[in-house]
């Protein structure tokens, strides 16, 4: 067993874990943050996308011990009690159907817009290339991210 300490959404967590414990299971079962989902076994679907020190990663392709000392952000930590502008945009543009891919999509979008506040459609599509959505055919998600970029630029937020 290994002792790990991480900060998730600004809160400190510490646990003894088996080294083989996957980070996604740590987040879901030890930290009980279930907005991070599992949709495949092989790192292809992106439902488990989490920000690791600000960068999107697939938490099913990481061991919890690898995240020791890291700062993680999950969907639950994106906006406190209100909604982030990306979340608003996802509602406005009907970018959510079953919701299973949504947390990962939103985190990928968040990382994109932080690095690139004015993305082209192609850049948006590339930013969510690692996130599968089985419901929407992506168009409304792409539109939502573009819409969020505009509202964020207008309000000067990042």
């Amino acid at each position: 067993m290994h002792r790990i300490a991480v900060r998730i959404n600004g809160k400190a967590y510490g646990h003894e874990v088996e080294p083989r414990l996957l980070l996604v299971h740590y987040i879901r079962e030890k930290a009980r943050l279930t907005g991070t989902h599992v949709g495949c076994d092989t790192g292809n679907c992106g439902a488990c996308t989490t920000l690791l020190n600000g960068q999107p990663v697939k938490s099913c392709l990481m061991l919890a011990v690898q995240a020791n000392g890291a700062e993680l952000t999950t969907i639950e930590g994106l906006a406190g009690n209100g909604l982030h502008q990306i979340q608003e945009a996802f509602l406005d543009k009907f970018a959510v159907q079953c919701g299973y891919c949504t947390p990962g999509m939103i985190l990928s979008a968040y990382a994109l817009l932080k690095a690139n506040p004015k993305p082209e459609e192609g850049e948006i599509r590339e930013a969510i290339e690692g996130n599968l959505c089985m419901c929407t055919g992506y168009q409304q998600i792409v539109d939502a991210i573009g819409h969020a970029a505009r509202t964020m630029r207008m309000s000067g937020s990042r």
Partner: protein
Amino acid sequence: MLNLDELFVTRKWVGKPVRRDQDIRFIRGEATYVDDLEMECGHVAFLRSIYAHARIKRIDTSKAAALSGVLAVVTGEDVARETRPIVPRAITRPATQYVMAVEKVRYVGEPLVAVVAEDRYLAEDALELIDVEYEPLRPLVEIEDALREDAPLIFEEAGSNELLHEKLEHGNIEAAYREADLFVKERFRLHRYSSTPLENWAIIAKHEKGDDAFVVWANDQQPGRSTTNVCNMLGIPNSGLRLIVPDSGGGFGIKLAIWPYIVILCLLARRTDRAVKWVQTRREHLLAGTHAPDARVEIELALRRDGRILGLSIKDIQNDGSFIHTAGIYGLIKFATMVGCYDIGATRAELVSVVTNKGPTVQNRGVGKPTMIFVLERMVDIAARRVGLDPAEMRFRNFVQPGQMPYSTPSGEIYESGNYPECLRKALSLSGYEEFRKRKEEMREQGRYLGIGMSASIEPGTSNLGYYYTHRGLPEYMGNAEGAIVGVDYDGNVNVLLGSVDEGQGHATTTAQVVADMLGIDPGRVSMSTHLDSLISPFLGHSGCYSNKFNDVDLGAVIMATKKVRDKMLRIASHALGVEAGELTFRNGEICWAKDERRSIAFKEIATVAYKKILLLPEGMEPGLKEIAYYKNPAAKPPSKANFNVQLTHSNSVHMATVEVDVDTGAVTIVKYVIVHDCGTQINPGIVEGMAIGSTVHGIGAVLYEEFVYDENGQLLSTSFMDYLKPLAVGLPRFEVAHVESPCPTTLLGTKAVGEGGAIGSLAALANAVEDALAPFGVKVTSLPITPEKVVRAVRETGEI
């Protein structure tokens, strides 16, 4: 269809793209899917067959059982002792199958042993300690393998590997053939694919010892049928099972087949005296979840020289794999769309369901209709070329005309409304059809191969259950219906419960829009839990989310229950205000006197009278303000072979795809995609558009990327999303969606199917576009998928994809 001006007291919400604020939990990561439920559970893992066809000689579970942390190890034999066999729905030959493998394995991935352990890590460790001895049998992978004379029988008791073989004629097919000037005939091969919801199957089962009853949480798509099946198989009374369906991460039909695993989980819960949880892995989902069957279809059109289609013959052979519950359905459901959008007077159908050692099949998005429309719309293009007509003109000449509605197809399917020519005209104009044909020629001179393809398709909704019975008397289920409870809470807000579940369609918002306009309030005041609880939710055998039934019978039940509540509110208000009910109107959460709006009573006050100050109720009125209603589609007729009447609403769409083919690499790029959709009245265009595009991408995935590939031993080679390729955000075009609105006369709001259309119409549109692009090479598309390799081979060698 109701008079909407009479039904609605406001017209503010229905028809508008109202935001899905009811579903805000999904945005916040606060949804509760089964695996999110906080519960102490034992965890289940399955050992699955590594052979496609083998006798089970011996299973040694002793080492696994001895592993510390393992709570139970159960084999198929153990399960069979405590359960009844699966009851098939459509097949006509006897076949006995249990929920786990007994004596024999029939596909790679069939569950052999279930392990329950303290956590999923230990459960998977235990699987490695189980020893199975197999005696391999000859695997039957493809249809041809199973139909060979010397083929072993997969179910010996059936006496054949064809579990259903029907020949059915409707209309005067002989006459059609006599009158025809020419015939076009082609054979098509369709592959296996699946719409793969992003959330895999997940179940928690708990056994309440005191009551000897089970509580199950599962992302089940059709709880109405599942509860019946599970109780029957376990031999328990209905009161012995409470099924709860929380949030579900997509369904697309694939979650209709979870119930056999519910049976297993119940047994495991009873045995371990623990809540037990199984969350399917993606590998399990692809290997042993469910697929759409692969198929071989022969189709012939009997034509007049002017392009009119007089008759259609089809021989449809489905590789239904090895799940007898739904085998045969893909064949029989084809009657829903057999003649597509066309006025074809006679049909002849030979439908064959073949059992093989491929994995199970179930009703994947569109169920057989994608296949039917694919072959039909390919044939219309082929026939058009043969008679020298433009494919669009060929379609115009054969369309069922708006004036023919309601139109009965030869087999008795009633198309209740639709304007097919208008949809095609609109699509031609949006896609720039004429200009494109010129541009195509110019591009060809530059060595670039562009093509345009269209398809016109019927998108049926609301299954008339039981359509699949051909021999064994009247089926257990008939027609279609749903139940709803609508109540006004103490605070005057409205609460809805539905017998259905939500797989992501936004039922809560759509329902809120309808109820809001019926009561004159803001949709924010209407809440609806989309979580189903079989103990509480209004419930029928039909309950569930499938065959686009929501906007027909589900909303029908909501409307009928809301009407009952509304009538009661009016009576209470009339009594309270001393005004005739007929003179009252709804206004912003109040009921007031039309002649003097100052005389009014708020919903909250009405609720107070109904629930608390019950002595103020009118004489003889029951307290409470909550009403239940069940609503059935009025057009359904009992099933018969003469009159299939498979589905009860019929949306339609035209898909127009423009593609460019790189003839050196075989890559197909979609450069433009137009969808013209007619689903009658739209309640929420934002949701409708999402489903139109989303379902189209399922079809695009099936045509360009996805395929379950089996080797000759029946091993599935595409068992992860690394090899089973789903469409990504990159590589898809922007979709242009337009609507024609032909309200459906047989649903209350004029709504029709939404949700499967794109998965039906897109296959042929793309195939026709690719064939058009490759016309200079004389390439014919007779199979799916259209992979780059097949394109290159067709261009360079075979001339056929």
